[in-house]
């Protein structure tokens, strides 16, 4: 192991090591539950900082793990969102009586899996990353014992996830059979039918993780049942990891141009199906969490629009993912502020009167989710659409904008529910979670008005 290797895996080490530290410390010390979540958040922040400080450099372990601009960027995003989710958890674990140390450790493990998936240099590491990302999530999903059917959705998630990872693994095997290599770079030579079949299976496996329709069926249930901070975490980190891997694989597949067209066509079709079905499904939801779940599936569709545009759109994808992360953490964060973990829209009545600041923040977040200016959500959509138009996907863009109108309908329902008169669920007092929500909303506005730095930063996302 060289210093280069260490540099490449430093953020990973911080995350996985942090998980171990939390577990061990929990055995040794008796501390307030909240401490563990806070400690985990600190490790996540440390991972992000590590990635930021070390920056891109030479790959580690013979290119098994990449240390390019993309890895660094996604490490920062994953670290920051994990930290945000764990901060949400600080005020959440105690009333929910969750085993804080284990939850924190699992979250950090999963985050390291996401990072592994995002920076994998070969398919085996990607597969391990996928599993490391998923397995803690299966457990986290079922953790909220009293919640509606937590065990049911945990089981569903697990069974579907197991089948999907089998598909992904089979894809790797087919690639290996057709190219005698599992390096991601070798996908370019997988031009025989067997190799192409492998690529198709890789795509299916990642589409599952990214929750693209029709691979999305686990997502609404899992999102609703999981403890809300975990929902926020999995909605962000799983997608970041999956899309990073999709980009990486896509870059290799489209590099020689042989299969580039197929890759883009497949993703364009997946994007179209996802956009239409997810937005339609979100329309009639009465549960806020479920609505947001479908909304996050729909957002995967928007990202996928850019993925379909090819590697040139990596900046757009990165930008969208960052914005999406802030929006999602913020929106689910609002739920952690309510005393009911699965509020209906009616439960939001009167919230504007009782917690005006929260509603303003939620309003900003919803505007961002709907892609309305002056939020960063708008710029993210513009960026994605520009990439897609540049790739001659005008039809997809038109579909996407029309679907964003449909999405506005359900986001506004949420906003208007908050504005409605009535006695909904009582909200908890000010908390760290509230701070996270407000911060997310603030970030969305600030980036919407001063997008320059972030736009410059995503230019560094190169593979």
């Amino acid at each position, binding site marked *: 192991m060289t210093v280069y290797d260490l540099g490449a895996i430093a953020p990973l080490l911080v995350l996985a090591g942090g998980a171990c530290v939390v577990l061990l410390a929990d055995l040794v010390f008796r501390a307030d539950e909240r401490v563990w979540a806070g400690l985990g958040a600190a490790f996540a922040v440390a991972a992000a900082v590590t990635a930021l400080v070390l920056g891109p450099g030479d790959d580690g372990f013979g290119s098994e793990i990449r240390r390019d601009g993309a890895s660094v960027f996604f490490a920062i995003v994953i670290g920051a969102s994990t930290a945000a989710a764990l901060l949400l958890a600080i005020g959440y674990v105690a009333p929910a009586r969750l085993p804080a140390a284990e939850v924190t450790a699992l979250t950090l493990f999963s985050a390291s899996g996401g990072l592994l998936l995002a920076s994998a240099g070969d398919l085996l590491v990607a597969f391990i990353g996928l599993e490391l990302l998923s397995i803690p999530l299966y457990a986290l999903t079922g953790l909220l014992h009293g919640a509606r059917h937590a065990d049911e959705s945990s*089981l*569903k998630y697990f*069974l*579907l996830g197991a*089948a*999907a990872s089998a*598909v992904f693994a089979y894809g790797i095997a087919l690639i290996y059979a057709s190219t005698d290599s599992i390096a991601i770079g070798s996908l370019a030579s997988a031009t025989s*039918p*067997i190799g*192409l*079949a492998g*690529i*198709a*299976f890789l*795509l*299916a496996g990642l*589409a*599952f993780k990214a929750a693209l329709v*029709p*691979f999305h*069926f*686990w997502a*609404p249930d899992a999102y609703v049942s999981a403890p809300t901070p975990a929902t926020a975490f999995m909605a962000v980190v799983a997608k970041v990891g999956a899309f990073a891997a999709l980009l990486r694989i896509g870059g290799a597949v489209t590099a020689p141009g042989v*299969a580039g067209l*197929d890759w883009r066509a*497949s993703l364009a079709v997946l994007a179209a199906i996802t956009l*239409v*079905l997810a937005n*339609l*499904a*979100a*329309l*009639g*939801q009465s549960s806020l969490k479920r609505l947001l779940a479908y909304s996050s599936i729909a957002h995967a569709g928007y990202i996928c629009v850019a993925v379909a545009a090819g590697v040139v759109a990596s900046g757009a994808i990165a930008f969208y993912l960052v914005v999406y992360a802030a929006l999602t953490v913020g929106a689910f964060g609002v739920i952690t502020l309510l005393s009911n973990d699965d509020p209906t829209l009616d439960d939001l009545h009167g919230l504007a009167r009782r917690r005006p600041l929260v509603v303003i923040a939620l309003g900003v977040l919803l505007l961002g989710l709907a892609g309305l200016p002056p939020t960063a959500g708008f710029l993210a959509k513009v960026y994605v659409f520009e990439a897609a138009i540049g790739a001659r996907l005008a039809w997809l863009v038109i579909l996407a904008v029309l679907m964003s109108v*449909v999405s506005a309908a359900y986001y506004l329902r949420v906003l208007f529910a908050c504005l409605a008169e009535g006695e909904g669920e009582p909200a908890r007092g000010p908390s760290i979670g509230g701070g996270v929500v407000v911060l997310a909303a603030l970030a969305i506005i600030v980036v919407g008005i001063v997008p320059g730095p972030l736009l410059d930063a995503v230019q560094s996302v190169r593979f």
Partner: protein
Amino acid sequence: MTLALVVALPLAGAIVIALFGGRLSRSLIGLIATGALALAFGAALAIAQAFAAGKGTLVAELGPWLPIRGADLTLRIDPLTLPLVVMVTGISALICLYSIDYLGHDTGAQRYFAALDLFVFAMLLIVAASNLLLLFAGWELVGLCSYLLIAHYRERPVAASAGVKAFLVNRVGDAAFLVGIFVIFASFHTVALDELTTRPPLLAASALLLVGALAKSAQLPLHVWLPDAMEGPTPVSALIHAATMVTAGVVLLLRLAPLLHGDVLSDAAVIGAATALFAAIVALAQTDHKRVLAWSTISQIGLMFVGAGIGAAFAALFHLLSHAFFKAALFLGSGSVMHATDDELDMRRLGGLARRTPLTTLAFACGALGLAAIPPAAGFFSKEQIAAAALAHPALLVVVLATSAVTALYAGRLFALVFIAPAASEQARGAHESPPLMLAPLLVLAAGALVFGLLVSAGAVPLGVAGATEAPLALSVTSAALAVAGAALGLALFWRGPRSIVPLSLADVARRGFLIDDLYAAALVAPFRSLARLLDTGSEALVVQRSVDAVAWIVGRGGVIVRRAQGGYVRVYEAMLLAAAVVLLAYWSLR
């Protein structure tokens, strides 16, 4: 400067009254209004003085208006329009003076006098505008003021409706007028009259302008608003009929004659002739003394159209002015009668007023003489001029003469029924003479009606337009004889009170203007309403709104279906997942 003053004074009067009239007494308001008009009249006389001294035209440039070539706030007065300006200001000042007592108990005096002054301003704009657009502005404002004044008694639904009707019919003409301006502007890129007169006339534009003139002057087939306009206070009728409104069409034809296509002008003459005879016959059948006068106006304007149409500008202008005198006298007389009899309008319930209201009778008689064109009243000379001009058009001449006869007949009938026949009601028996402030203008106008024709014929009052023709003696004699005969017949027949000469049903049809109103109601108004209803309940509700509902429904329905697909069974999800993977696989590997 003086010219600007003439036009601006009535406007200033209107503005002052509108803004501050609320705090002033009724008579003071009336005095302000009258004063403004009188001053304008004085200024007009001053201009006349200048013209008599040999000045050709007078132009007042007051600034820009619309960003169109020629569409500036510029006034222009020439020998043709000068008499009109004098007449308009003078007669309306008298009418305004008359109104002070007439409106003595009306709470709406403020808006009445404001509108009256505005009315005069608008008419002066028509007369003195230097471009089509400014002329049109006056044109529309005249319509607006007529609406305001006709609907003066706004609590009365009939009056309110009559006002709306007047405005609407006028707007039909205005729309045509507008399009006419568009045509002219599109062709010549200017609306300045002095520039346009040098251009060849356009047939379409001429026809459209004529439609405008027909509506404003209540000529066939757009005459329907005028009889209903009687719902306004009687001085308003005097104003509309004599000075300010209905003659605007004739003014238009006279002023724009160089712009108008020859064919259109002859059409105007034909329409005028037809209207003249038609309206005279209808007037014969009226039972309401104001309505007789209203129809008579339509008829007389028709004669002016004949004159203007056949190019006899002098004749038309002459008749316009003399008509202004005698019609103003008649209407104010009519108002005096109403004042005397508690607003009794039905001639069959009047009678015998000659003894009870002698001065009114006298003035009315002068007016009636003018209307009947019995020498030496003004109407005789002016009508003779029209007839003389029509000599070249035998058909028109016949109609003009026939109209004269019928006119004299109904004038005689009117006078006989109201003043000579035995009093037929309590109101008639209890009639009393009007106050002096009403009588004075009435008598002035009556005198005018009597002598104006002589003065003009003698050349004492120059009209500024050349073209007086020496009527053949035979024609003069014939027309005078027809007039006298007609009037005598009318007096003789109705000396003793109302009687039926033609079958009642026929008389009734004639009285109702040969049912043209009903025809319009059935053929225009009803379809219009149906169309609006069809659009409201049909296209708007069923197509425009429903189509949006339909899209919303489809999207919502799609949501329901999609949510149903999420049925809860993990095996179905697995099947979907694997099936999608198979599809992807097939797409990728089977090429």
